[in-house]
């Protein structure tokens, strides 16, 4: 039972949020992770998400928007079901990161921050994801895939397309 009537979140997420706000010495501390978990649940940080989170944390919606627009993982438009994030920062670049990015662009037929027409995939060029020693690397949603080459990328994408890819949130 959520603390908020008519919550827009799934029962699990709503219950998680009810708990989250009780953890910290100051309620607002829950804001950044809450926005990310809300995005995991709804797909993106919609206006309704902003409204409910502001309500849960006793904040102005403006406060929530100020914070939300700061963090690069948070998006205000839907992404694909599987968001492919290719790192092109220095260590990955040296080992073919751009080749992987280009390959993904061609394979999925979309560019940076675009979504395939069936809504299954979206593509993003991202900054360093902390997998430098296993470069080139990418994340599909939160799962890391490293030591990539184009053949491996094809396999990974096909696995997700078949609905068999790892997707832990």
């Amino acid at each position, binding site marked *: 039972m959520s603390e908020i009537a008519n919550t827009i979140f799934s029962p699990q997420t709503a219950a998680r949020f009810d708990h989250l706000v009780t953890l910290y010495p100051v309620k607002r501390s829950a804001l950044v992770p809450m926005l990310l978990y809300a995005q995991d649940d709804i797909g993106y940080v919609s*206006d309704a998400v902003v409204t409910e989170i502001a309500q849960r944390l006793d904040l102005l919606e403006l406060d929530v928007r100020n914070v939300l627009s700061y963090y690069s993982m948070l998006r205000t438009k839907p992404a694909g079901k599987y968001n492919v994030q290719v790192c092109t920062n220095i260590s990955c670049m040296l080992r073919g990161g751009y080749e992987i990015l280009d390959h993904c662009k061609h394979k999925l037929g979309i560019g940076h921050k675009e979504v395939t027409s069936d809504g299954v995939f979206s593509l993003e060029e991202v900054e360093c994801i902390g997998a430098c020693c296993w470069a080139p690397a990418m994340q599909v949603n939160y799962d890391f895939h490293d030591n990539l080459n184009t053949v491996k990328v094809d396999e990974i994408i096909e696995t997700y397309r078949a609905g068999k890819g790892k997707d832990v949130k």
Partner: protein
Amino acid sequence: MPDVKFIVDGKQLTAPAGTLLIDACKSAGIEIPAFCYYPGLSLQAACRMCVVRIEKMPKLQTACTTPVAEGMVVQTETPEISQARKATLQLLLGNHPLDCPVCDAGGECELQDMTFKYGAAESFYAEPKNHREEQKWSPAVYFDRPRCILCYRCVRMCGEGMDVFALGIQNRGSSAVIAPNIPAQLSPDNLAHLDCEQCGMCIDACPVGALTSGTYRYKTRPWEMNHVSTICTHCGDGCKTTLGVRSTSDGAEIVRGDNRDKSGINGDFLCNKGRYAFDFANSPERITSPMIRQADGSLKEVSWEEAFTFTGKKLRELRDTRGGSSIGVLGGNRLTNEEAYLLQKFARTVLGTNNIDHHRTADYVTFAQALAGQKGRTASWRDTQNFPAVLISRWRSHQPGSRNRVEPSLRCPPQQGEALHRQH
């Protein structure tokens, strides 16, 4: 706080411990430039213009965040410091539009003044400037994004100063932008808007022409106005306002009200009425001469002499035929104490009546009587800044100056205030 001694540009200075270096220097006549520093608002150290050289410190330090300390030795204008300021200005000017000839702030712009002083006139960049269309946030507030230098004065003024929190900072890095509280997608016209009381304080605080006033913009140049200091007539608070008055072919026109010089009891504060509600002065509907109702019911304009003669005659008739007690006198709420005194004296000694009252916006008579005989029974605006607690009874929101004095400090103590928190 005990005084500390320190040296700035070779001069021995003294200031209470804890005074910020920028303020201590200002008191001693040494001006340190700054965009983001604004007295009374939280510290930012963001514009990096107030950098100074302090002995024993490895880097240049911001004078706006450094409290003076015993024995501190400071340089405020050296080639190194001038270069740092010049470089900062060059960076700002890289994207700042050079529309000064039509910008409202032209001639009273802090960026212009500093560019003039530090000579950052040379341009390094071949890339086009980032252009964005001007936005009308409200009838009172317009935002010109490319002109904004992100000093955050408006955001703090709105939040910490006014307790309204209608402005925020969004995005990050070179995309960072001042944002109003109604985003475009939630607005019927798909444009961002400002939902607030339209006090216009953000416009006054803006050091450049990024925020401009809907009533003033593109009307004149600052140097074409006479700046007349006066007292606002809209309520009993008595705030000081500066009216920008421009000559016209048939007299003069008030084009702007503000309080940028921060004089008067209101400091830098001015409410929306004080700032915008001067249009009555030149209104065609304004009554500018006395009128006497005629037998057919119409009103006829007359001279003051005629009007006084007529009024005197009628009052005398009343007093002589029905007695003074048939007359009552009501003072207006914009009379000064001296005028009110003269009015009652006139009523008692000339009209022969004790029926004297005033236009009541608050029952001050009862209040004053209740407090009579008590010591220290009244307090001034300044007192509200220093007392540990203020009890508010029957809050009157139509005295915005008083409200502004008391309210932000009440609702927004530093440990809770969002922006104030930056002081830590």
